[in-house]
């Protein structure tokens, strides 16, 4: 029971309180680039959640069971990026084989997940915070869900912004960033929840 409670706290902490996008600035590129429509945002969120969960867990295993044992910590970054790149490749092949329509609608965004800093960032933060195996698993899944939540909210807001009268210079990225600022202020309300 105690372990479960602790894991729930880890989950809420990384999904809401320390949200990857809004407090750690990870995954800003898809957050600004793919959030124009809510269905695309949701698809992106799902793909990222999937890759994040697997690579967060696998990099934890490689880092703690192999690299630290043989004292080759300095290869950490190279190992992490290799794992992520091959995971993305795997997901891409799997989706292309079994869900062709989904693959069509993702297009270029699927391979681009490799350079999504949310994924590498989560692996690095898990290492930095010294998480155990279960915490790493739950934490990376929570991080992915937090990303999905925020990118979908942004998609919803931007669909409505299409009809708003935005000053010419702020159209596109400018107004999106200002919206993100207001959203961050709202998410600061969660900050008292844990510790």
């Amino acid at each position, binding site marked *: 029971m105690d372990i479960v409670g602790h894991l729930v706290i880890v989950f809420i902490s990384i999904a809401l309180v320390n949200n990857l996008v809004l407090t750690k600035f990870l995954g800003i*590129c898809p957050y600004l680039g793919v959030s124009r429509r809510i269905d695309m945002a949701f698809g992106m969120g799902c793909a990222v959640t999937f890759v994040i969960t697997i690579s967060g867990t696998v990099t934890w295993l490689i880092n703690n069971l192999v690299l630290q044992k043989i004292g080759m910590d*300095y290869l950490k970054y*190279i190992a992490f*990026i290799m794992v992520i790149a091959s995971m993305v490749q795997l997901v891409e092949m799997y989706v292309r084989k079994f869900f062709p329509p989904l693959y069509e609608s993702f297009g270029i965004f699927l391979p681009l997940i*490799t350079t999504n800093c949310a994924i*590498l*960032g989560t692996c690095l933060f898990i290492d930095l915070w010294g998480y155990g195996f279960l915490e790493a698993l739950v934490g990376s899944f929570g991080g992915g869900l937090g990303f999905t939540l925020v990118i979908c909210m942004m998609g919803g807001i931007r669909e409505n912004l299409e009809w708003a009268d935005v000053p010419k210079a*702020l159209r596109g990225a*400018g107004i999106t960033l200002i919206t993100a600022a207001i959203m961050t202020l709202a998410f600061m309300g969660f900050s008292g929840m844990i510790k």
Partner: protein
Amino acid sequence: MAGQTDNSTTAGRPAWLAHLIRGLWQENAIFRQLLGMCPTLAVTAALKPALTMGAATTFVLVCSNLVVSAMRKLLVGHLRILMFTLTIAAFVTVADLLLQAFLPEMSERLGPYVPLIIVNCLIIGRAEACASRQGVWTSLADALGMGLGFTLALCILATVRELLADGALFEIAILPASFENWNVMKLPAGAFLTLGILLGLSNHFLRKGK
């Protein structure tokens, strides 16, 4: 292919100078192309980390552009993206170890944002768009221009934020003590807001210029 190598070998100073200036302003990574947003927002709460980050990114960009450009004829198919990433990861490891050795405080403060240079889309973007197609010297000029432009943009953002958040620049107080610090500028919300408004301003003035 022949035209491109021709361009890089026969063109003298003006060509690389043009590359340099293009990266600095016309195609500025942050204000014009919106690349490398994550470090941009994360490290610009003050000038010092912004400058360190800019220098580290420029270092990695220059090294990886040189290596990629030198081996551009060996790269094929979609394996090349993997090669870019591995080259960049190797140089980021070097930069990270250098920072740990010579600027331990700064290394601590930047934390995981130094390894995150690996996935800075600016660097992989330049490897793909320039270094894998152009000669070594052109790539060098391009990397320097892009890196300095990135550093410049980081510093502009950091100047605004540090001045409003602490009334200071480089941790030296500039504004009188009666200035009420805008704490929100130090927080993530301040980062998004400043960048949004700066983007709007740069759009406004550049469009007027044309």
